[in-house]
């Protein structure tokens, strides 16, 4: 009796084992170049990341229309890491080992990037990371096409401190409690103090993910702003929590003329869920706005609308970063003549491609890129209007000069240095330790 049961159980177990090895054994066919797309399509981050998946598919389709790459067609491999961080690592491994992709475009949150880093290092593949982040990282296999803090946070604060920005003297640093706001606020705090802002003129506040009841905090901001000095809020509040925050802000009557809020994580996509009329004049700092008045941007928006068959779909900064990253990869592969990781990684440094705001972005030796920094004010139609921009391009700084642990560190992946965390004080690669 137990024999038959045994064969059944064994059969089932074997089947599942076989199936998983089959996935493992499936070989990539050689007539296309595969590109992995690692963005969450379900779970909490789907709200932001799905757009980037669509943008990547669009870019790949466009490139195939132009004849592909190295005479081959590009093929997108889409997986869903489901906003589950360990799953990101697993899926990254699957893309590289099983699907044999040549490069991966993906991740949004810092933790997803941290989760996949060891995988890319171990399997020596290439990741393009298209989102603004906290910096303090430079990895050989990763190319950061989003903004580092010095390409977003510091110029924004500079603007607000200027006469034109309102000569702000008192600062609320409000953020969601995770690593990007923590680090950005650390950097800003050090920066503000260096600029002579007193301790009591800085208020730091952290809220949990998805925080939806902002009454207390908005009234705290109001109270903090009534000390007779010009006050501004620097918001690193994460995606989901922004809508209730701005709704509360609008209803509580905090006007941009009185207490402006400058946000680093609010773009066109986030505003699409909001009635922006009460928010006109609040600010955001990015490297791209949909309103950028250039030909290449107009073309990009048209393609996007045609691809999504939706005239109202907005574009945003991480999409531009994906666009830049993708074009850089194309150029580097052409330059190297192969998709081999080592060759592409070497070829990428120094590559320069047009961005959507009318200039060129170049890949720096620290695997960050040069970008213009724009400050935009929210308009009634949910778009931003650029009110200020840096005069030239700003190069991304992997290691902040305003943090104790990283002020001596630099990154340069070119030979002979080839080091992501070279310590200029000790003259050694490998961080600040002894």
């Amino acid at each position, binding site marked *: 009796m137990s024999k038959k049961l045994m064969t059944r159980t064994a059969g089932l177990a074997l089947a599942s084992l076989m199936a998983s090895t089959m996935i493992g054994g499936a070989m990539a066919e050689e007539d296309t170049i595969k590109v992995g797309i690692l963005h969450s*399509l*379900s*779970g*909490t981050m*789907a*709200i932001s990341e*799905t*757009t980037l998946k669509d943008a990547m598919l669009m870019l790949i389709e466009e490139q195939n229309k132009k004849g592909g790459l190295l005479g081959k067609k590009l093929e997108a491999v889409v997986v869903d890491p489901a906003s589950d961080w360990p799953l990101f690592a697993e899926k990254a491994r699957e893309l590289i080992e099983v699907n044999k992709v040549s490069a991966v475009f993906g991740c949004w949150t810092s933790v997803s990037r941290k989760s996949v880093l060891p995988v890319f290092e171990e399997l020596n593949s290439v990741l393009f990371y298209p989102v603004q982040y906290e910096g303090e990282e430079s990895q050989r296999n990763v190319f950061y096409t989003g903004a580092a803090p010095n390409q977003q946070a510091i110029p924004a604060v500079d603007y607000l401190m200027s006469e*034109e*920005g*309102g000569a702000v003297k008192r600062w609320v640093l409000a953020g969601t*409690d995770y690593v990007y706001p923590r680090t950005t606020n650390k950097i800003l705090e050090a920066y503000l103090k260096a600029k002579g802002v007193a301790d009591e003129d800085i208020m730091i*506040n*952290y*809220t*949990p993910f*998805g*925080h*939806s*009841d902002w*009454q*207390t905090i908005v*009234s705290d901001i*109001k*109270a903090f*702003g*009534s*000390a*007779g*000095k010009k006050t501004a809020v620097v918001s690193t509040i994460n995606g*989901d929590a922004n*809508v*209730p925050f701005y*709704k*509360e802000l*609008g*209803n*509580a*009557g905090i006007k*941009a*003329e*009185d207490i*402006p809020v400058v946000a680093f994580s609010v773009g066109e*996509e*986030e505003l*699409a*869920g*909001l*009635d922006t*009329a*009460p928010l*006109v*004049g609040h600010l955001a700092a990015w490297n791209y706005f949909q309103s950028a008045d250039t030909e290449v941007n107009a073309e990009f928006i048209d393609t996007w609308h045609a691809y999504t068959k939706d005239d109202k779909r907005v574009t945003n900064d991480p999409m531009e970063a994906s666009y830049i990253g993708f074009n850089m990869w194309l150029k580097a592969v052409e330059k190297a003549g192969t998709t081999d990781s080592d060759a592409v990684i070497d070829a990428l440094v120094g590559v320069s491609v047009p961005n959507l705001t009318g200039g060129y972005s170049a890949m720096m030796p620290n695997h960050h890129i040069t970008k213009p920094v724009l400050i935009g*004010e929210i*308009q*009634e139609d*949910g778009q931003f*209007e650029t*009110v*200020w921009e840096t005069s030239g391009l700003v190069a991304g700084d992997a290691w902040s000069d305003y943090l104790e642990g990283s002020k001596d560190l630099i990154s340069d992946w070119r030979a002979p240095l080839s080091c992501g965390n070279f310590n200029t004080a000790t003259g050694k690669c490998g961080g600040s330790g002894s």
Partner: protein
Amino acid sequence: MSFLKSFLLLLCLLTGFSGAVIAQEDLESLRPLVNALAEGKFKETEQQVADLAATGNPAVAPLLEALGNGDLQFRKSDKAVFITRSAGKGYQLIDPLTHEVAGEASRSEVTKIKVNNGLRRSIRAALGSLTLMAKDPDVRKTAAAAIFKAKDPEAIESLDTAIAKESDDDVRLVMEQARAAAVLNSDGGDADRLEAIDVLASMGNRDALSLLTGFAASAEGEQKAAADKAITRINKSLALWGNAQNIWYGVSLGSVLLLAAIGLAITFGVMGVINMAHGEMVMIGAYVTFMVQEMIRSSAPWLFDYSLLIALPLAFVISGGIGMAIERGVIRWLYGRPLETLLATWGISLMLQQAVRSIFGPTNQEVGNPSWMSGAFELGQLTITYNRMWIIVFALLVFAGLMLVLKKTPFGLFTRAVTQNRRMAASMGIRTPWIDALTFGLGSGIAGIAGVALSQIDNVSPNLGQGYIIDSFMVVVFGGVGNLWGTLVGAMTLGVVNKFLEPYAGAVLGKILVLVFIILFIQKRPRGLFALKGRAVEA
């Protein structure tokens, strides 16, 4: 929406000035100043705005209003400045001074005159001085408030004239406050300033505090002493109001929790179904609101203020219908196996989320506040936002309505009978399966109308429900499963406790403490706040 508002305001302004006959040449003398706006950066524009305001010409007011709203554009070909209004694919051009239609232009032919926050501030101040004598008391009040913010000493004179003429007490008070602010900012004499400090002290709000603190930092002698005294007074009263404010915030948070949980109190509390798809019912209600608003926006914009009232019954029917479908299709096979309902409804919840994501896309959808739900009013030193207030009212109404249905209607009687003793109820001739379906539908429908309300303060995205499901379960369990009063008291208690903890512990720690509090509370009262008594307890 807000274009409409500003347009109405514009209209008001125009009618306000129609009394004054404005000579044509006066207007034309402004023309060069107006057309100058087409040139220069923010700084220069700011100066131009000041120049325009200095003319004192009332025709400047609507012009500045348009500039502030971003409706002022110049034609690229001849740098002539116009007020523009969207018309089809392009703009209708309106002469900024005579307000006559001056032709049309495509989007590429004109360029917007950019404004930033600094400019908006100067426009607000300029408008304040210009409209201080307008006919409409609301406009005068706004003007005075604008001067208060700008605290421009040069406005004192015009304020004095305006105060002397003012017939409306409310408006006069605001004007006096504006004057006080301006006086503190000027180099007026001792007596004048002390009087101003008094006026501000009696205002007693944050704006006054802000002014006084700024003033006290640089003042000396008697003035400083008076200002310091006023500051202490205001701070004291604000601290008192702070407590009232915490209670209000707590009740407001409690009402949100109540709304989110009350449907669950029926499906889970009364029927015993561990309904993990409850949050998705709330989400569906929010999406119904979104669809109603979309339809209204595209075909009947004048109905926008009623959008929520239209959405309520629809959300109730749609969520309730889906709820009944779930009950008939899945849950009815699981009675007597309540824990298994957890698994099935979890699966349903995943599918509903994905369905919404596939249909509407993963991004947030815009649900606007109707005008009666936006903005805030002041009650003493308490700022009460309309949307929060209506949500509290709405939550209590839903609760009362539900109580009525359950206690006073035959359906309520049947529901209670079925949940208390299914077999006996069936023996008495009640169609228990039908009642089950209806009850589940009722619970889901109420979740749906909760979604309508929550769409006003939160994201409308496929994840909406996930954010509320855990809190809802906490509320129901804390209050006592099966007891609606428990849900009410539970929601309010948790809301208020949370809001009193938040200022001290911060939002994150506050929430953790509330959870620990719930865990400890359940140790003390293992059946929740209002435990059901009787034999059902040990079933």
